[in-house]
């Protein structure tokens, strides 16, 4: 016999620290006391994410959502809800004073995760086209083919305010219109699935979880601009995404939703997969097109823009996975509905890969305009291990670092740009007090230097020079002139690099120089790393008055450079120390200090 009711107590770090365990124990005691063990199961769960109002208690199947619960509330909760079947209004979450919210779906926190792009991910079987069809799949294609003219599709997209999700946020409707207006044939539709930012996997998840949404949108684009051939350019490192995409294309062909004369409309559209070898620069659209053509993946000067002269010099619509995944929903539900989501200039949602020093890393989709604070503290569950938030990096290696004081900035294209960062493809990496901003800048620049195609001089040479300077600074060998040099190089790269990769590559450096200059100065003037991260500037020593000679550090040292008898003060051999920090971590007596 199943339980009739479930009382879920949040067991996340945040709630635990507010005595969630006490609540749990009291609830159990109360259930036993009132002899409800047969009907009610009290369960400690993972984090609900809404840590700001924890501890949280949820009761199923009623889906009552209680916040700020204390151990003393247990009796009332069990008596009222489990025994008498009534909610406890004073503990229910209220969005504002006037409204009462009993059900999870009504609570705005959950609405902060707003799934448009990921509407089917984690819900349908991506290898079964019928499940996609059941979720209104291919209804948008059906609608454009039989009810809408290409101009109407463009108008609808323009009205929706959809902007490209891959980078600069160019309005999708306008982009499609450029290609539509060119009188030339053939035309092409290309899906950019060459997701390359470190830590980003939005597109991979979409292709893996809902490949048909992209195929449907590409067919819609084909119909709109007058193209009959589409290519999905996906990196070979995404084997599962490629498999699912292959299956999806095959099924769509079998069902007559791709191929000749789709649904008897007379419109023909085929999609082929092109595999990339994983060069970051191939995410840049002109380099991507060169790669599809079989050329070396190097960017080409723009203009001409691909919309006019793209693949094989033919007009080409190129959008990324997330942009395409928005299209069928906009067509099916209309731009009026879509424009209700997000901000005035940035409509809709954005998918982010939230990673770094955060409790709940993962893939999130939020309406544009959600604040960084919401994302970090509500959805992300705050900083891991109780550390202090330092910065958040958006837009991957092309983005900038955002300081704590800007956490209340609503996320959209314009606001991020104002902060010296970009939306990019949607990576969000959270950094805490242990992260050295000079080193983080060096990491990102190292990535772009590694991934630079090497075609244009500002990026090829400038990036490397800048990296070398950062490297010197992290070793305590930097000078103030080096900062000037980085300014000069950064400016030239931003202005004179050929493609977006080079133009944005200095962003992490420039933004960290702007917001964390004190850290640079500490490295240069004091040869010290405030975050204690830069190995060359860090020294671990053992305080004789605190060391009790437990030998723990010596046993954990990977290079055996700590010596000392049991119950005697231990000493680190500085010459052999590799600054791994293991001794610092394991010491239970704070005897190891990091300077």
């Amino acid at each position, binding site marked *: 016999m199943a339980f009739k009711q479930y009382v879920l107590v949040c067991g996340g770090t945040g709630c635990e620290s507010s005595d969630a365990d006490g609540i749990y124990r009291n609830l159990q005691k109360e259930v036993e006391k009132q002899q409800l063990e047969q009907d009610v199961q009290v369960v400690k769960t993972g984090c609900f994410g809404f840590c700001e109002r924890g501890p949280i208690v949820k009761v199923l199947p009623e889906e009552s959502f209680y916040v700020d619960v204390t151990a003393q509330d247990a009796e009332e909760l069990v008596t009222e809800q489990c025994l008498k079947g009534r909610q406890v209004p004073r503990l229910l979450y209220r969005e504002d004073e006037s409204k009462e919210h009993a059900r999870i779906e009504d609570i705005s926190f959950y609405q902060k995760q707003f799934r448009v792009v990921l509407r089917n991910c984690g819900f349908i079987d991506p290898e079964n086209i019928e499940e996609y069809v059941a979720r209104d799949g291919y209804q948008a294609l059906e609608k454009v083919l039989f009810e809408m003219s290409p101009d109407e599709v463009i108008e609808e997209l323009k009205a929706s305010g959809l902007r490209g999700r891959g980078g600069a946020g160019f309005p999708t409707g306008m982009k499609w219109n450029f290609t539509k207006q060119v009188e030339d044939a053939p035309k092409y539709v290309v899906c950019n699935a060459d997701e390359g930012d470190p830590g980003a996997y939005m597109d991979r998840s979409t292709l893996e979880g809902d490949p048909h949404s992209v195929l449907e949108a590409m067919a819609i684009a084909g119909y709109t601009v007058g193209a009959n051939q589409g290519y999905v350019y996906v990196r070979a490192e995404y084997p599962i995404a490629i498999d699912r995409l292959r299956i999806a294309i095959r099924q769509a062909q079998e069902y007559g939703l791709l191929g000749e004369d789709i649904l008897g409309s007379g419109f023909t559209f085929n999609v082929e997969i092109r595999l990339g070898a994983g060069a970051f620069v191939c995410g840049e659209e002109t380099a991507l097109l060169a790669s599809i053509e079989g050329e070396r993946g190097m960017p080409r000067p723009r203009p001409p823009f691909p919309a006019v002269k793209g693949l094989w010099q033919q007009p080409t619509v190129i959008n990324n996975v997330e942009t395409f995944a928005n299209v069928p929903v906009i067509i099916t539900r209309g731009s009026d509905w879509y424009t209700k989501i997000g901000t005035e200039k940035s409509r809709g949602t954005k998918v982010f890969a939230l990673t770094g020093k955060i409790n709940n890393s993962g893939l999130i989709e939020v309406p544009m305009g959600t604040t960084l604070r919401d994302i970090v503290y509500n959805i992300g569950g705050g900083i891991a291990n109780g550390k202090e938030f330092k910065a958040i990096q958006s837009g991957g290696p092309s983005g900038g670092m955002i300081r704590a004081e800007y956490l209340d900035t609503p996320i959209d294209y314009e606001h991020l740009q104002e902060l010296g960062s970009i939306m990019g493809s949607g990576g969000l990496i959270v950094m805490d007090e242990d992260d050295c901003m000079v080193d983080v800048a060096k990491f990102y620049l190292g990535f772009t*230097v590694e991934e630079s195609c090497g*075609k244009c001089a500002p990026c090829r040479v*400038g*990036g490397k020079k800048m990296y070398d300077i950062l490297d010197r600074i992290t070793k305590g060998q930097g000078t103030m002139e080096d900062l000037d040099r980085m300014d000069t190089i950064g*400016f030239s790269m931003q202005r*004179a690099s*050929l493609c977006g990769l080079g133009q944005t590559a200095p962003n992490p450096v420039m933004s960290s120089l702007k917001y964390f200059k004190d850290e640079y100065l500490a490295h240069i003037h004091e040869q010290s790393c405030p975050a204690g991260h830069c190995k060359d500037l860090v020294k671990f020593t053992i305080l004789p008055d605190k060391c009790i000679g437990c030998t723990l550090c010596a046993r954990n040292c990977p290079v055996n450079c700590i010596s000392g008898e049991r119950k005697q003060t231990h000493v680190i051999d500085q010459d052999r120390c590799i600054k791994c920090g293991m001794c610092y971590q394991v010491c239970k007596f704070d005897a190891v200090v990091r300077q």
Partner: protein
Amino acid sequence: MKKINCTINGTPIQVAEGTSIYKAARQAKVKIPALCYHPDLPAWGACGMCAVKIEGSNKMPRACATEVQDGMSIITHDPELQEVRRSTLQLILSTHPNSCLTCARNQTCELQELAAEFGVRDMPFKMDLQDIPQDDSTPSIVLNPEKCVKCGRCVNVCQEMQSVYALEFLDRGHEVRMAPAADVLLNDSPCIKCGQCSAHCPVGAIFERDETSKVLRAVRDEGLTTVVQIAPAVRVALGEAFDMEPGELSTGKIYAALRRLGFDVVFDTNFGADLTIMEEGTEFVRRFVNGEGELPQITTCCPSWVDYMEKFYSDMIPLFSTAKSPQMMLAAMTKTYYAEQQNLKADDIFHVSVMPCTSKKYEIVRDENMYSSGSQDIDVSITTRELARMIKSAGINFAELSDEEADRALGLYTGAGTIFGATGGVMEAALRTAYHLVTGADRDKVEFQEVRGLEGVREAKVDFQGTEVRVAVAHSISNVSKVLEQVKEAKAKGEELPYHFIEVMACPGGCISGGGQPYGTTNVVRRKRIKGLYADDTDRQLRMSHHNPAIAELYENFLGEPLSEKSHHYLHTSYTSRPVYNK
């Protein structure tokens, strides 16, 4: 063409639609610096030196790659642009060795010129050089990737202009390097040694193999009779190295300079060209009239083209004229016929050819047919650029030299011989003689205008008194496949052949813009050089190869008749399939 209006630094100017900002600025007499841009090639956008501003945009687009739009306000110079360009230049300089004094491009280097123009006096950035060994595996061209500035010209020349795909960028980021594709030695790559890469390289990263010291050594050797020949295209280009106008004919000065350098005998490749026409023209008539051999006949004067064909079109070897190139014919005659006359042994003669071409350095050792005299028929082949250097270092005031004549035995030439240096020239020279051979009379109008020009492929139907001869002329290897594929298709379908005679030259414009010619060749320069050759032709009394009395003497005294057994032995060659990448 539609005209559009724009302003450059505030000055209004009207340009044709589709004009790049770079060209529009030139039109307005404003010079925008550039390192990677070359008018022969698609705008590549690599160097970043030509960044400009457009009012209303905060970006700095490339002037080379951006078309002017109607109403555009363009700023080409302001302090910010200067700063960006200067630091970009300094970044480039930080990856380029400071070995100007001993560099092949000292004083002809475009990077050196930019550094001088910008007045760069300091190097704020640490030097960061690529340690890559020099590749001197081919007899023609030397790669020195260490000096490469990654402008992409050579790669675009090799791939777009020549369809050879021997050069490629390897690796990426700051490790990117210019190298033979697949990272083999250049000699093991598909390289056809045309040297267009070396002619387009802005710096000293690709250059001709310098063999001037071998020449000087031979000239000093009193036991050797040094014989020199100059190719048609040299006479309209060498002067450029001495501040003469492109196309200015300096044949007489070159003969004089060669004698000053110490050569004993001065011959002219143009004589060899006349001889080639006698052989190749007769060969064509045999194929065309007598049906002896396959049609269309394809010319083989260009060793790069021969190399390309042996690598990529070896199935068409039967279509190739077996006639050697003019340089090789002249050389074979020098070490046999002329040697006999002078009572010399072939080995007593040291034969130097001065060519507009890097590939000729390869041709002289191509196969055993190049040793027909029993000795190496040509001992050293140098380029126009090398000769210019020799003249300079010998202290000869070239521009002031009085004209001299070539030595008569193998130095007299007709107008037909001289136009060999231009695309279409071999065809025209051949047609002049073939007409005579087919119809028994000379054509009233000497010129065949229809095969002249700079169009990539030119086709013509020529009337030989009622007989139609269909010809095609192609230059730049990228234009060749258009012609050859048509032939293949017609043959496969058993249809009427589209052409009877095809001329191919590997370099754009023909030998006048060969890979060994003075730097700075553009279409403007090409046209001037071509004009110079046609002027030389028009000025000659004799304009058809079969009218050359020295040629007649040669046949009478030595060879007998065209395609005689002796001719075959000395003046003809054979071809072999040379597949690439499967060694």
